[in-house]
């Protein structure tokens, strides 16, 4: 296992080292010590390696991640796993605003709470939040799944496209063009798999409600002017 102590080596050295790893990487297990809220820890990895970050991180941790499994043993600042392509990112603590923004694939698990704008403009990523999420989450979400075991804040799914949202607790308010939808068998199946992948075996899919797009705002329609 490679251990990198950020109180001794620079963030740039760490990320360059991580970028040198590829699909045949021999060093498959990494540990990062003393992140102390640093920005851009473990960004842009494209290798099937596993990284444990021991402490809290700042902005954009694990951004653009491909293939790698990154676990933060602490909380994450704004933009964690932003534009993730594939792989798995787990935050043991809380995540700040716009977690998983624009993500195209992979699984982001937040074991604490996520803040505002979680999954904003998500494009295929799956996000599972054990706690609550803040306002304007899944804004303009295009595809992928957002699973919330706690409550959702104001304006959930505003201007949403085809992402699917599952919330177990309450939703403070729904955004424009977002509505509750029926849970059909295929949704139970998808949700059960996502919960299992996130390690939430005790949570049942029938405890959730599904939300998605009313598909009224896809194209400009003068009758909907009030909703824009």
């Amino acid at each position, binding site marked *: 296992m490679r251990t990198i102590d950020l109180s001794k080596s620079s963030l740039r050295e760490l990320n360059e080292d991580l970028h040198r790893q590829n699909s045949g990487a021999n060093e498959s297990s990494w540990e990062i010590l003393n992140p102390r*809220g*640093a920005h851009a820890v473990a960004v842009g990895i494209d290798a099937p390696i596993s990284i444990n970050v021991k402490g809290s991180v700042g902005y954009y941790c694990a951004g653009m991640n491909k293939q790698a499994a990154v676990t933060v043993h602490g909380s994450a600042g704004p933009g964690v796993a932003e534009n993730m392509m594939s792989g798995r990112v787990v935050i043991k603590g*809380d995540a700040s605003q716009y977690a998983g923004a624009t993500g195209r694939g992979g699984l982001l698990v937040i074991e604490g709470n996520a803040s*505002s704008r979680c999954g904003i403009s998500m494009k295929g990523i799956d996000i599972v939040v054990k706690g609550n999420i803040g*306002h304007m989450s899944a804004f303009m979400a295009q595809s992928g799944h957002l699973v919330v075991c706690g409550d959702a804040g104001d304006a959930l799914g505003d201007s949403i496209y085809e992402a699917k949202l599952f919330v177990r607790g309450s939703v403070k308010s729904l955004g424009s063009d977002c509505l509750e939808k029926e849970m059909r068998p295929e949704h139970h199946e998808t949700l059960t798999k996502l919960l299992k992948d996130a390690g939430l075996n005790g949570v049942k899919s029938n405890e959730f409600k599904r939300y998605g797009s009313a598909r009224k705002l896809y194209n400009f329609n003068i009758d909907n002017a009030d909703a824009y």
Partner: protein
Amino acid sequence: MCGIVGLFIKNQALEPQLGSLVSKMLGTMCERGPDSAGFAVYGTPSKGKSKITLQSPEPTSFQGLPERIKKELGVATDLTVKSSHAVLTLASDKLETVRDWLRTNVPQIRIMGAGEAIEIYKEVGYPTDVANRFELSKMTGSHAIGHTRMATESAVTTLGAHPFSTGPDQCLVHNGSLSNHASLRRELARDGIRFETENDTEVAAAYITWRMKQGLNLGDALRGTIDDLDGFFNFVVGTKNGFGVVRDPIACKPAVMAETDDYVAFGSEYRALVNLPDIDKAHVWEPEPATVYFWER
């Protein structure tokens, strides 16, 4: 962008470390606001005494000031000069008289703030240089608020730096920008509030002073900002014995707080908090949008 740090000490045993802790916090936020910096430190008040913090680009203008005040007003004052700033200590009941006299007779000296506990230092320059210049790390007290500025709404000047103080022992720092400051400034000016700058943040500070003058406590005055101020804001506010935080409902500007039995701390980022004692055991959270947090002792 801007960076904010704040520390409110609950356990008096930590008071001697206030300056050194806040100095380290401020140093972590340089990248968020490299153009100017400032801080307000609430020291232990001495009974019946008040302090006026003065600033002058030409420190020689402080020379002979206590003698002139003694001669012209018959008021005894003590002057401590720190680089471009100076603290004038005097009997509390003479505060208004001396402040009016300063405004009229030494207009080249700017008044940064006044009160029984507060001292305010702010300058254009890199935040760590500003902190060193005024020896922040040696200062002691109950609470302190610091700011690193990346200017958007008004020029990079000493007076445009934060904190802004518009009332006795009050100060406010801001990350964000306000859209309705011009109209609100006119309203407050009609009510007799005095403005020193064209800066949006000064209006927010004055708004809170105005509300507190109407009898509201710090918490209720902060709640008013959510309805009456339009724009982006994280405010951190100090009063003689209080410390408050509020974010606008959109809450784009970053904020993280930490609390232990010994202190409450605010940082624009977690990086600002990592050097605090027992931070690993602290309750760390992101303050909710449109929610007022305040502590008093």
